[in-house]
């Protein structure tokens, strides 16, 4: 079997890294596509206004397992060298900061992964990492310095990609996403957004693997800067409970295993492949446990995705037609028209209307 570069991209993009971890190694010709000697890709993992949930989520990666990611060739011929990660690294204090600084000096020679939002209020004093001459260094300063020198930045999690919960109203610490900081500072280093609260480990590892195999250009991004491989679809469109929506079978209270739209499910306004990928080695996922999707992969999470238990389109909550507009701009008018027609027809058919008016009375 001959494997073209295009096939690689399809494999890494369309499916789990399991494919890369297991099947590709036995594909004849695979190794010849890669450099003979081992390529080290130094990684600096910068944690700012974060809960560490995305780091913990990455530990849940399966095929490759996290120990493979740390010490093995994650892709044949390629080793990720996790130089700086505050939760994992042996070093502390000055020793840790020295590694970060030494690694960062090699312009274009490392990848920066950012987790958490970046406080900008009061010069970013709300998050500091390490100190220099007795003065704390803000996470914002680190991002600007490291981000300018990095080959690329992977923003992991909705805080780093769009601000997320720390940037929610009233945004007490002036939190910004990586991209917004870069725009303000005129930094042109490419940014890839892996949103999610938390980000799925496959989304992180799959994106890194795609870069290692095909280079940065191999990662196709949507208009929110996310790899289309993982964020192309609306959860609603690929939801296994979609059939319930289509026939108007809605859960009336949490714990009912039907369509959760009436309980506030944000699946119709949220892009991610959770329904088919599922979480934690495929064990389950949010809607799978009868809990509404809270829209955690979207730029307007959480403010326009809440109240979490109010229907999309109700007061203060983003409506589906906004997403239809987005799609119209992003992937073509025909698709958008199709979705608009679908939503319109569903509403017109009275199934949703009935539900809404019923709730309006109560």
């Amino acid at each position: 079997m001959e494997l073209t570069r295009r096939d690689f991209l399809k494999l890494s993009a369309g499916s789990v890294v399991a494919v890369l971890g297991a099947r590709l190694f036995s594909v004849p010709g695979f190794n010849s596509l890669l450099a003979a000697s081992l390529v080290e890709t130094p990684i600096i993992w910068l944690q700012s206004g974060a809960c560490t949930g995305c780091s913990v989520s990455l530990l849940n990666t399966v095929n490759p397992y996290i120990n493979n990611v740390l010490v093995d060739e994650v892709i044949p011929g390629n080793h990720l060298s996790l130089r700086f990660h505050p939760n994992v690294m042996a070093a502390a204090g000055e020793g840790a900061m020295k590694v970060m600084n030494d690694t960062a000096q090699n312009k274009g020679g490392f990848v920066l992964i950012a987790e958490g939002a970046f406080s900008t209020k009061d010069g970013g004093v709300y998050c500091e990492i390490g100190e220099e001459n007795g003065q704390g260094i803000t996470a914002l300063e680190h991002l600007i310095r490291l981000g300018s020198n990095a080959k690329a930045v992977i923003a992991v999690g909705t805080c780093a990609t769009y601000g997320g919960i720390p940037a929610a109203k009233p945004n007490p610490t002036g939190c910004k996403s990586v991209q917004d900081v870069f725009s303000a500072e005129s930094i042109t280093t490419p940014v890839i957004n892996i949103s999610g609260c938390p980000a799925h480990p496959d989304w992180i590892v799959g994106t890194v693997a795609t870069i290692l195999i095909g280079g940065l250009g191999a990662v196709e991004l949507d208009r929110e800067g996310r790899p289309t491989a993982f964020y192309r679809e609306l959860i609603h469109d690929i939801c296994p409970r979609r059939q319930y929506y289509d026939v108007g079978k809605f859960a009336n209270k949490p714990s009912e295993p039907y369509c959760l739209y009436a309980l506030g499910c944000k699946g119709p306004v949220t892009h991610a492949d959770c329904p088919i990928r599922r979480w934690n080695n495929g064990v389950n996922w949010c809607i799978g446990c009868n809990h509404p999707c809270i829209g955690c992969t979207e730029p307007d999470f959480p403010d326009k995705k809440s109240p979490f238990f109010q229907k999309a389109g109700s007061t203060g909550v983003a409506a589906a037609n906004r997403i239809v507009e987005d799609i119209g701009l992003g992937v073509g008018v025909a698709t958008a028209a199709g979705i608009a027609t679908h939503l319109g027809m569903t509403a017109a058919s009275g199934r949703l209307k009935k539900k809404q008016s019923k709730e309006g009375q109560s």
Partner: protein
Amino acid sequence: MAKIVIDPLTRIEGHLKIEAVVEDGVVKEARSSGMLFRGLEIILKGRDPRDAPQITSRICGVCPTSHCVASTLCLDDAFGITDKIPKNGRILRNLIQGANYIQSHILHFYHLAALDFVDVTKVADYAGKEPALVSVKNFISRALNENDMYMLAPFYPRYEGDYRLSAEENQMAVAHYVAALEARRTAHELSAIFSGLMPHQKSILPGGATENVTVSKIANFMWQLEQLRYFIDNVYIPDVITVGKAYPDYLSIGSGCGRYLSYGVFVLDVAGAGLAQPRFLASGTTSIDTLQYASLDAAQIAEDVLHSRYSSPSGLHPSEGQTEPAPFKPEAYSWVKSPRYKGDVYEVGPLARLLVNYVQQNSVVCSAVDSMMSELGLAPADLAGTLGRHVTRAIEAKLIADEMAKWVLELEPDAPTYVEYELPSNAKGAGLWEGPRGALGHWITIKDGKIGNYQCVVPTTWNASPRDDKEQPGPIEQAIEGTKIKDEENPFEIVRIVRSFDPCLACAIHLLTPKRTELGRFKVC
């Protein structure tokens, strides 16, 4: 006199700086500073109360379940449905929380703490065929061949010197480091069976839980739990004993304030309210000197702010708590408030929980603690230091995993997990719970159907608190002060002590040290 500054103090959750003034080789004064503030309590104001469990889960990605449950209990209380939660809902919450404890304790010992005791480089001499060790050996060889020690990241650089395990013990420990990565992942998968996903589980909300109970889910849960029980009994606990025997001086190094507090965790019966509910690990207080039980009166908790950067009044009960930042308050040196109980300093966490339950003669706890003590040739009064925290954490992992195996069989397939309720316009609630790291309290005031006020007092706020209004240092500060530092360039003692508390700085969300100010910094001679 010298000052040791460790910033960032890694392998904990969040951003922490430790400063220690050392005189004649002994720490004279220690201060801990959290370096991150997000203001989640401020963000919660004005939102739908039902959003609190999901938003507060984002306080911490290591222990989101604890916040989710504390917040949910807080809302159950405010909605007046604490005693109406269906049996299945109560058990599902316990199982999801229990899985998080197992995950957190294993992660803490192997992936956060162990590198202070284990020498990874000893795997370079490994001659066997264990795949995980061969992998690590190759990894080390590559770095040696290239003569680039940074290729050993993230296991290098590190503090050098005090690694005491034999080559064989080190190799075994590294193999277990890798096995523990799988075990903690399995614990998340265990949780996800009923919680949808980890981190940031769903399912748990006021009224009960959302996931349905089926026979196949019960069987699935039992099987995965069995694997974890095997790991805890045959790997985790023996490894803690191995480390304990190699580092016996750490029994006394890191002794803290000697007073312990627990709110209790794992509801066994929904009858009653709050602390009156029977819990597997009960609430109470005790001290290492007396080992006498005293009941907990939650009304006696107050937060001092003399040395915290707040202009709000000192000594408020958290239900009335205020968060008014005052970055330039002259006498302040931390953004952690100082929670105190009856005016005294209390340590929280697995050590506190087990001692509080040991002195209450909880038979399950006593038998597990006694058997571990006889293995180590110790008495419970020896547990106050660094090793005591690791030992009790491991025992607790076993106790909880063993109980979960019973709880899962008490689930009733297809019976309700959730009860409906009316949303009140105005109400107050409290949720007192225990996260893996200790006593966790959430307090809510609902006004006009929205969150009027929300306050959290988290475990690390207790443990990493600064000096209070009476100038009493917090538990971590007390544990470091008086410690003899053998090598100031490689201050193993400090990081081992701090990490034994398993600090979670993202949790201690009041924390902040403003930049470019000398206020509250050390005056070094």
